[in-house]
């Protein structure tokens, strides 16, 4: 089963790359692979110029302090038997820090940074709301001063009004701490709000990448166009007519031949069913994998 098939991208320092796609497109596998939580079958991952793909467990652990992840589910990602202070301190302890007083001071500082008072330190996760638990998860991810952050659907489980708080917090932290991030979500509005550039995934591949503004003003890949056309707008006067898009994303076990989107593509022609499209460079930070754009 090819969860990810030939995915290539890079993220520049201090930038946020958004990864958007529907369920089963491979974006979570991507998140886990980048952090070596899942070992890639083939290919390389370079972090700060160094190939980290083949690193041994101990070296990976050392790397963890620089590369962190925030998950979707604030409930299952926090150990219910640990107090908040120990949850947030864990990455520091794992990195070899021994000075207990220094650890707790850092924990207190991080909790403050995410808008939680030091009173929360002695409590347990179940005593907090979803939004607060997510803040605890963010504090834990940032406690080791990482340079790189992967956020996998960090606000999808939160109510809209809480999501706004957490997104604004994340934006502020990314700016203040000069973080480089990959922001993954199925929600296009959220991804575009949080990211300077976007990679669109479909059936285990990236089909298009572009700076956010360019992607929105001129989406090139037919799937990107479909995706953007499907997003409900909060404007009743602009209701979507019954779309021409039919069918669903293919199973990763047996993708269609040629371009994986061709069975659903309104522009598909003969080549699309037999040959996989190459990446076509459109501009400096923009490419698309689609035969429509091949020279």
């Amino acid at each position: 089963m090819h969860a990810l098939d030939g995915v290539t991208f890079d993220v520049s320092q201090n930038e946020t790359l958004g990864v958007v796609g529907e369920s089963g497109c491979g974006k979570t596998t991507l998140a886990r692979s980048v952090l070596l939580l899942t070992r890639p079958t083939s290919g390389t991952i370079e972090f700060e110029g160094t190939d980290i793909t083949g690193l041994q467990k101990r070296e990976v652990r050392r790397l963890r302090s620089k590369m962190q992840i925030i998950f979707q589910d604030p409930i299952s990602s926090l150990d219910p038997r640990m107090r908040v202070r120990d949850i947030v301190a864990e990455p520091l302890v794992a990195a070899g820090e021994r000075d207990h007083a220094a650890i707790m001071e850092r924990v207190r500082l991080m909790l403050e940074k995410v808008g939680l008072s030091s009173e929360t330190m002695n409590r347990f996760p179940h005593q907090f709301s979803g939004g607060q638990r997510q803040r605890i998860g963010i504090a834990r991810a940032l406690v080791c001063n990482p340079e790189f952050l992967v956020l996998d659907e960090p606000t999808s489980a939160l109510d809209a009004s809480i999501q706004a708080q957490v997104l604004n917090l994340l934006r502020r932290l990314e700016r203040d701490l000069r973080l480089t991030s990959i922001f993954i979500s199925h929600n296009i509005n959220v991804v575009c709000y949080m990211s300077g550039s976007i990679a669109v995934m479909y059936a285990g591949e990236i089909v298009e990448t572009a700076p956010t503004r360019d992607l929105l003003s001129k989406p090139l890949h037919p799937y990107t166009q479909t995706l953007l056309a499907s997003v409900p707008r909060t404007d009743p006067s602009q209701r979507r007519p019954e779309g021409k898009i039919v069918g669903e994303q293919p199973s990763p076990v047996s993708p269609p031949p040629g371009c994986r989107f061709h069975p659903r593509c309104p522009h598909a022609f003969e080549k699309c069913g037999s040959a996989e499209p190459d990446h076509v460079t459109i501009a400096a930070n923009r490419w698309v994998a689609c035969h429509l754009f091949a020279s």
Partner: protein
Amino acid sequence: MSTEVLSIENLRLNFNTEQGALYALRGVDLTIGRDEVVGLVGESGCGKTVLGLSVLGLNPMPPAQLLEGSRILFRGRDIAGLNQSELTLVRGTGISMIFQEPMTSLNPVFTIGEQIAESIRLRLQRERSEEKSRLTSTEVEAEILDALRLVRIADPERVAHRYPHELSGGMKQRAMIAMALAAKPSLLVADEPTTALDVTIQSQILALMRDLMREVQTSILFITHDLGVIAEIADRVAVMYAGKIVEEASVHDLFSEPLHPYTQGLLASLPRLSELDKEIEQLPGSVPDALDPPKGCSFHPRCKHATDQCVTITPRFVTPRTGHKVACHLYQE
């Protein structure tokens, strides 16, 4: 009166828990007319799902408890206090429900066709009193295929013989809608029917539901937290907060001129593709504890317009514009 399919009056429902009474619904009034889609929107814990379940008597009692004076009038008949067998008759004949997870209503050990047939049989039970003759098995099969075609399933014969697990998420949802509509209900209660679906599939299902409204005479109570979906499907919208409706208007009026500070805050908190430069506004705080909702206006702890009276006096509904009502002291005369 005759144009109303559903009229909910002063609905109050508590859940009696170990920690005390949980005030899930605190006096809800809502009417749904014929051929109307009423959207019910709110965040988690506001009571919208409990309200939907109340219409079908699906909240287990105990621990749920309906308070005195609560009425749910379905085609003029109060169904609020009915027992299970009385309700099954009503459910099978006049009101259908679909859920976020299709597997809540789809039985895994029966084929899609068999489950739709059951909806048809329940409908026939009702129609028997209107002296319609029983359908033959050929006619039932034809109706099953019609129901599947209604939801735009391309090969209904094949799908009718499938089990739920053999279908994709979008197909399961269509099958669930087919099942619900085969009973030819006057009212369909849909609780987050597209939330679990991918956005491209969601847009197909919403367009389908909009088309179906023109074809069948079924009103819909569409429950969701997603304002974008509400804008796509609803005719009228009721916004819920802490067990009460705080604002109600036509969908166009609600989105163009939201009155209640909570509605305004909710709309402002959504990232929009057309306005990426602006920082989205955030409402402070979080939704109140249903065990101990704030006194006065439940929204006051989070409201930037709150005054002294908001803390102590519960606002009543006023109608500052035709067809647009709001429960907020800002608009009292």
